[in-house]
Structures are given as C-alpha cells and as structure tokens.
C-alpha cells in the first residue's frame, strides 16, 4: 500500500501541527506522520512560557510573527489554549545582570518588541511580593503563557478539519529521495510526496542525517514542577537572567516552576525529573517569591527537546536535498515559536520564499568547512 501527498510532515509537535494547518488552509494535500500522539513530546510537556524577550536577534522575527498568531488563536482554531498576555518579568539579581537587561533593549527596539525597565522602589511597588534578591527587571507586556497540553492537539484538530491527514502512532523508520520524490516509510506503508518537512524535534537530527546532514544536536530535558493551587497573586511569567529558575502562576492558583534539568533517553523515548534538581528549583523559587515558602509541590516532570550548540533552531531548506525543509532543534524555547514555524514552512514549501527573516537559522551553519 502507498499513499501520496503534496507535502509529508514528520513529527506532530507545535511546529509540525501548525505546518499541517497552514498547508491545508492553502489547499495542499498534507500527510503528517507522528510516532506517538500529537504534542506528546516537547510541545506537550514544556513550561508553557510564551516569551519573546531575551531571545537571540536571529529568532526575533519568527517570535514576533508567532506573537501575532497567538493573539488570534481563538478565531483561527477555536480555542485560546489558555494563552494569556500576562507580561513576562525578567529579573536581575545583581548589577552585572541588570547591565545585561539594559544591553538587550536595543535588540528589542530593533524588532519592535516593547520592554519596560523597572528598578528599586518602582519594581517593589509594582510587585511587592518579590524577594530581596531582585534589583532590577525588564517587563515585556506582550509576553505571557499558555497551556502546552492543548496547543498541538488543537492545531491538529483544526488541520484535520481543513483537510490534512494526521496519522498518530505512526513512526517514520526510513526516508529517502527517489526519482524526484520523497519516499517515507512508516508502519509498513510507503508514503510519497514532492516536499518533505522535518519537524521531528530532537529526532529531527536523525531525519537530517538520513539526508546526509549530520548536526551536533543533543537532547535537553528541563526539570518542571507544579505546586498545589494557592491565591492568584503572581500575574507575570517570571524569569531571571541566566535562567536557573522561572515560574508562573495560572489563575486557578497552581504555580509552575522550572529550573535545572532532569534526564531522558530519546531512544525510548522517556524523560524524568531529577529529585535533587526539583529541590533546588524549590529553593530558588522561594528566594524569588518568599510567599511560596509554605506551599507544596504536587507533581514534577520533564520532556525532551533538541538543543543546538548555539541554542538556535535549524529552520530553512536542506543544504543537500531540494524539497526538504527543516525546522527542529528549538533548543528549549520553541513552544512560543511553534505557530509561526508552520506559517513559514508553508510559505517555503508552496512559494519557495517567506517574508520572515531566517538569517542565522540555516542548517548550513553546521556544514563542515
């Protein structure tokens, strides 16, 4: 048996599901092949931070575009996935860190990202619950958070409705280019298409390798925990320079805390939090917001993302194989980007070009000299 389409997508995280949706909207015949359930890896397990500030300039055009899509999710896919523009407050705990926040202002301005600097009394007045460690902060009013468990399934459902074929529990075991077509083997079936999208997350490295493009990707397993619900008082998503702790509260009261790394085996795939790292994150969270000192943690988890040495994703055409497009290795911050990645991949696949600048994200940067 075989099945053919205009575009085949490998991997149904945020990147793959949004690509399926944009392609289906444009009328392309799309087949998305997902090893587990859509959103069962990084896109479903992440912290839920929808943050633009602090991103590398190379990523900001994608992030800005994503922000516009996040805002329109209800009209696009019928649900907001609990996206809330609560703002993101990035804290400096000493002068050197504060200097880093100031240094970023130019980058932000160049990309039209609004930021507000707060210091000393002004910071404390606005956020009286902050601990003594914070000396300065930059506030990004257009950032916030969303529920990661909902995004990929919601995108996939909308894509299906628009005509995409989304096959779950279907692992791709081999693929190659043959007589101008891609042949993709999954679950004993051979699928073929003119275009192939590699949105396989950490495993995107494997897919790229099938086409002779080895990249130095490693797996990345942030350690996550969540507390019991308490009175809602922390509105912005909180981060720190250096990123060793971050936390956000949802209106129902639970506080989600990240910081440090668990462990994982992408071959299974499985990941798990590290109890010692969990305790350290609790300590850092309580230092950031002392009122957290008497709440309880009720659950912890981790997930697997692919991280590149320069902590930037690979987005753009393959350097070896025409018709193959990559978008993987989001290095621990691809949840926010997901919706825009699909839009960009769709344009590259159908029009051969996109308005969104992707400079610095090409796979070419890893080609051996």
């Amino acid at each position, binding site marked *: 048996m075989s099945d053919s389409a205009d575009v085949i997508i490998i991997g149904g995280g945020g990147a793959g599901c949004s690509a399926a949706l944009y392609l289906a909207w444009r009328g392309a015949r799309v087949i998305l092949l997902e090893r587990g359930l859509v959103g069962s890896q990084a896109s479903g397990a992440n912290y839920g931070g929808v943050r633009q500030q602090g991103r590398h300039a190379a990523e900001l055009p994608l992030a800005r575009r994503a922000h516009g899509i996040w805002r329109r999710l209800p009209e696009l896919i019928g649900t907001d996935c609990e996206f809330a523009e609560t703002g993101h407050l990035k804290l400096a705990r000493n002068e050197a860190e504060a200097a880093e926040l100031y240094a970023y202002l130019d980058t932000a301005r160049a990309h039209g990202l609004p930021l507000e600097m707060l210091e000393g009394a002004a910071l404390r007045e606005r956020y009286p619950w902050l601990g003594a460690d914070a000396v300065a902060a930059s506030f990004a009013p257009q950032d916030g958070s969303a529920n990661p*468990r909902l995004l990929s399934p919601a995108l996939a*459902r909308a894509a299906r409705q628009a005509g995409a074929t989304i096959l779950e529990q279907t692992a791709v075991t081999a693929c190659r280019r043959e007589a101008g077509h891609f042949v993709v083997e999954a679950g004993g079936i051979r699928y073929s298409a003119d275009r192939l999208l590699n949105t396989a997350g950490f495993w995107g490295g494997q897919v790229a390798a099938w086409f002779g493009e080895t990249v130095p990707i490693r797996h990345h397993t942030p350690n996550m925990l969540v*507390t019991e619900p308490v009175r809602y008082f922390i509105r912005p998503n909180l981060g720190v320079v250096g990123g060793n702790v971050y936390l956000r509260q949802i209106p129902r009261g639970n506080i989600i805390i990240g910081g440090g790394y668990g462990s994982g085996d992408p071959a299974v795939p499985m990941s798990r939090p590290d109890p010692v790292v969990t305790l*350290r994150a*609790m300590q850092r969270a309580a230092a950031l917001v002392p009122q957290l000192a*008497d709440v309880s*943690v*009720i*659950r*912890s988890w981790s997930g697997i993302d692919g991280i590149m040495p320069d902590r930037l994703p690979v987005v753009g055409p393959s350097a070896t194989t025409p018709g193959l497009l990559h978008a993987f290795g989001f290095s621990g911050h691809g949840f926010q980007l997901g919706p825009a990645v699909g839009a960009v991949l769709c344009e590259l696949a159908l029009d051969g070009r996109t308005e969104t600048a992707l400079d610095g994200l090409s796979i070419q940067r890893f080609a051996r000299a």
Partner: protein
Amino acid sequence: MKVAVVGAGPAGVRAVEQLVRAGLRPLWLDEAPDGGGRIYQRPPAGFRRGAAALYGLEAKRAQALHAALDAAKPAAEWRPDTLVWDVTWAEKRLHLLHQGRAEAVEVDAAILCTGAMDRVVPLPGWTRPGVTTLGGAQIALKAQGCAIGPKVVFLGSGPLLWLVAYQYMKAGANVAAVLDTTGFRRKLGALAGAPHDPVTLAKGLYYVARLRAAGVRVAEGVTPLAIEGEQPDAISALRWRDAAGREHSTACDAVGLGWGVRPELQLADLAGVPIGFDTVQHNWVPQRDALGRTPVPGLYVAGDGAGIGGAVVAEMAGACAAQAVLDDAGLPADQKLVNRLQRRLRRQARFRAALERAFPFPISLAATMPDETILCRCEAVTAGELRAAAAPEGPHGAAPEVNRAKAFTRIGMGRCQGRVCGAAAAEVLAAQLGTDAAGIGRLRGQAPVKPLPMPAWQGESA
C-alpha cells in the same frame, strides 16, 4: 549489604523480620509515626483502648504483628514518619522526607511494601465534609478512637464494608444503614462451590448477622443516588434505590464509602517496574514473580502494594520477598520456609479470586455516574467534562487514552494524582471510548508520591 524496606505494615514487618534473622540491618521506612500498617494502625501514645476493642476478631494477629514490629525495630535502622517521595533506581537512591526536610539515601536493594488504598466511586455530594473512605473511617476509629460522625451510613461493597460497620456498631456509634451495591445472589453465586477461605467467610457472615441482630438497616444490591445536605457544608441524608427500584432517603450526617482497595504502586512505577492490568482484581499491579521479584534488579514488592491479597497474604509475601533478596545476594535463604509459604500463598490466591468475583468493582455504577458528578475532587472536574474530552467535537479533538484525557481536563492532576478517583475515572472514560479500563491505559506516576512542602529543600543543602 543495605536493604531498604518501605512500609511497616504486615508485609514490611515480616520482610524486616526475615532480613534481621539473616543478620542484616535493613533501613526501614514508614511515613506513619509508627508501624502496623493501615489494618493494624496503632493509636497515638496515651490512648488506652485495648487490642480487643481496637481490632476485634483480628486482635490476636494485630498483637502478634505488633510484637514482631517492636522486636525488629532495634535490629533495624527504623525510621518512622519518613515518606519516600521519589525513587531514582538508576542510582539505587530513595528520596526521603522527614519532618518537612528532604534527604536521599543509597541502598543495594529495596522491598516495597507500600500497601493499598480505597477504591471509591464518586456520586453527587461525595465532596461534602463528612464523607470518608471506609479505610479512613476505620482509621478514625482505630487510631483516634472517634467516629466519622454521630450517625453514619456505610456504602460500598467488599469485606471491609461489613467489618467497618460492625466495628462502629461495637464501639457504640450509631450506624444508620449498611448499603451494599452488590446483590446477595452475586455474592452467593461467586462463593458457593468456589474455593474460599472458611475463616474469612465465617467472619463476614458473623459481622452481617451481628449488624442485623442489632437492628441496623442492611440492604444489598442498592444503587446510591446522592449524598444530600440542607447546608452546603454538611450532610443530612443519603438517597439510594433498592434492588426492587424503590427510592429511599436515609438520614445521616456522615458516609463511609469504598469498593475494595487498589495497590499503592507509585514507587514501583517511578522505579521503572512494568505495570500490568490484573483482570481478576480489576487493578493495575506491578509485574513480579511468585516471591515478589520485579524485572528491575534489586527491586522487590510485597503485600497489597504488589497486588491485593489482604493482611494474611501480605505477611507471607513479605517474608518471601526478604528470602528472595537474600537468595539473589548469594546469602543463605530459608528454602523450607519459602516452600511452605508459597504453598499457602497459592491456596490464598484461589480464595482471593473467589472473593474478587463476589465483590467486583462496580464498573457500570462508575461508568454511568451523572454528568454533573464531581469526579476528580482535587481539580473539581466533573464526569461530564471527562466524557467531553473523549468526544472528537471538542476544540482539541478526542483523547484516545487516559493520560491525554488528564492533559485536557486536569483529571488526576491534583494533590492526590488520581489515587482517589482514578479507578472510577477509568470506567467513565472507557465507557465513552467503547473500551475497558485496561484499554484506556494507566495514569502515569509522577513524583512526588505525596505533596512535597517547599521548605523540604533545606534538608538537601544541610
């Protein structure tokens, strides 16, 4: 060689006893302030009710176990009031919480004797104060010497229903009714002709007879409808339907409910032990051999945490698991003891199967609960919301299995992590998806096993 035994109930006590006999000094952990487990839980120091009053027909067994417990404590590294909140078995490390402080220990082997917990079927009103599980009601009586309310209805099915009702009556509490959701015929049919444990059966009949003789209202084959109250935070009656279809309302101010028990297997799960569905007991159970060895080297399970068998079985299983630890470590094991216990355990397993057929988990009662019933009380998720998550029309499509349903609805994401509502939620979801409890999969275990207070980190850096 350092062996940890987690739990000091019947299985844990007998496991430690055997390890000590072999000259080891096991690390012995229990989250409770003292040993005895749930069934033989001791009252706090200073309480003066005797064993006969506390444990009734079980007094002899309780006293024997307590004697073994107290004898083993000085020979072990006994650490009560210590919760094992996570296991990282790649490093053979147990993560402990004692008096709000965290600490990690490394061991060579561990026997998990983590016991069981009540299975409940939520019904409208079950989140009102005054509703307790049967096990909780029993512990209130045993450990605290108090009843869950002045006028109590007991509802559910299984031997514990009758035992707890009897114990309440004997202690002088006002038992308004005992309502068994299993019909008399079903029980008789399952027990007649099947191999059963004459002692257990005789005890059960004795409890029923005594309750009836005392004029307690007893009904079988009932369908519970709702726990009602005039005030939002109190109970005034339980509404139910009898086997003939007539509706009743029994005035009460507390309800104890439960439908058998399920293994507490989170630690085994976190340690990577494969978990399978046991269709006889209708529970997820860790994979193990007859002696309690799991496929994870160095990790053993015994007692109800390894699959429900009750206290008598747990004692034998604990001893067997300890012998397996010794044998696997190349230390001399008591093969004669193992052979004798294994024979008795095999017989008990047949009794158990008959008991499970007599008191099956009420699948259809759970599956048909009204949409408005709060199913997950930690996260206030209704049965209707769970059903909606299984429907393709939702904004996120259909959840094909239980962890995806959890992701969509937050069912099982709260403080108890689905330990309370999980069994019933499985039936609701399975019915909606046209499969069974095994078919929808199992809620993944996640650390911490019980809520971990923030200041716990201070133990780590100390």
